[in-house]
């Protein structure tokens, strides 16, 4: 699912397209940072994750930490280096309606970074 970076209006809101996929019973994989950082650390999560979680509070969110990707192909480089990458699957988290948006996004980010 390609998401336009510019010119987003109410009529072509990408969250609606993701929601449609979820309603059709499919799983979706999202990159909540929306970009990569130069130093390879995990950036702040964008609000889209919160919008989506709020619309589907029953769906578990599984954080997946992709290790070493920034060393394999750092931002700004065209040449990959064949290092070993690993995907770490963390404990799923769920939406909590009492929680403000920023707290939820921080909690989601923490769940991704830290192994329980």
């Amino acid at each position, binding site marked *: 699912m390609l998401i336009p970076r510019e010119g987003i209006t109410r009529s072509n809101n990408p969250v609606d397209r993701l929601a449609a996929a979820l309603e059709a019973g499919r799983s979706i994989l999202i990159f909540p940072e929306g970009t990569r950082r*130069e*130093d390879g650390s995990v950036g702040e999560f964008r609000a889209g994750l919160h919008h989506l979680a709020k619309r589907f509070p029953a769906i578990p969110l599984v954080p997946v930490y992709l290790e*070493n990707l920034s*060393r394999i192909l*750092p931002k700004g480089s065209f040449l*990959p*280096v*064949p*290092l*070993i990458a690993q995907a770490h699957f963390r404990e799923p988290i769920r939406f909590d309606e009492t929680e403000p948006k920023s707290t939820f996004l921080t909690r989601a980010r923490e769940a991704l970074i830290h192994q329980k």
Partner: protein
Amino acid sequence: MDPELKILFGVIGGILLVASIVGAVLAKVVKSDGGRATVANLNARTRSWWIMAGIFCATILMGHIFTTVLFGCLSFLALREFITLNQTERADHGVLFWSFFIITPIHYLLVGIQWYGLFSIFIPVYAFVLIPFRRVLTGETKGFLASTSKIQWALMVCVYAVSHIPMLLTLPMHGFEGQNSKLLFFFVMTVQMSDVMQYVWGKTCGKHKVSPNVSPSKTWEGTIGGIATTVAISASLWWATPFNPWQAALMSLVICIAGFFGGLVLSAIKRDLGVKDWGSSIAGHGGFLDRMDSLCFAAPLFFHLTGFYFGTGIDPAAPGWILNLLCK
């Protein structure tokens, strides 16, 4: 096919057959939980050994080019494990790309065209000069010496040292022309046998740790028993080498000791990085580097000792066709 090589393959097949039978019996007999885990690991190791020995023997039969390509791939995979675990900086990216896709292929190309003169200095001299040159271009000074040293070390251990194994095929020796694949086989078999025998002796009667801080599994009983057994087996295969029995014994002793220290050195690096294995590619063994650690340090030693005492002198000049190309 060389009849002596057939016998060597037979010896390996026989040893693996015994290991498989012993493993199957142990799996039935052993009941304790700890024992079961050890036997399961033993059997996983034996299964991996069958595959590794099969690939190795097949490649040897296919000749010089295939053997060079096999060890080139192993170097590449070992380098990958080494660099993955040894943290490098963003500024090293360009140097790493060079190391994987330019330096390593060129080095193995030199093995392939048998240009000993450039082969022996390409990484110690040219890579040594080029790596800091490339890195300094990035303008980043943080961790400069640490990074360039790590990468140079990685290339020396994983690429330069390992490449001496296929280079054994090019070593000219009196009265041994065209039989160098047996020399290569003798070397690899001795190193790996030494690892296996040290494991077997260590598991059965190991008590006193050699260096608990560096490698908790290495014991004096395992090391001495393993090396003694290996030297005996390897010396008995002297007829397949350019050595007489006592020379073969001495050579295998040197190989075993270098292999032992090689394993210890790479173990020390692993402990420093806080990991148990270099990777998880080979079931029961860990990563490629876990299987190759003892080969790395023994290979250049064996190559040069053999060349020095039994060789007819290696011509360091470029192959004729390259000289023709350059001097036209």
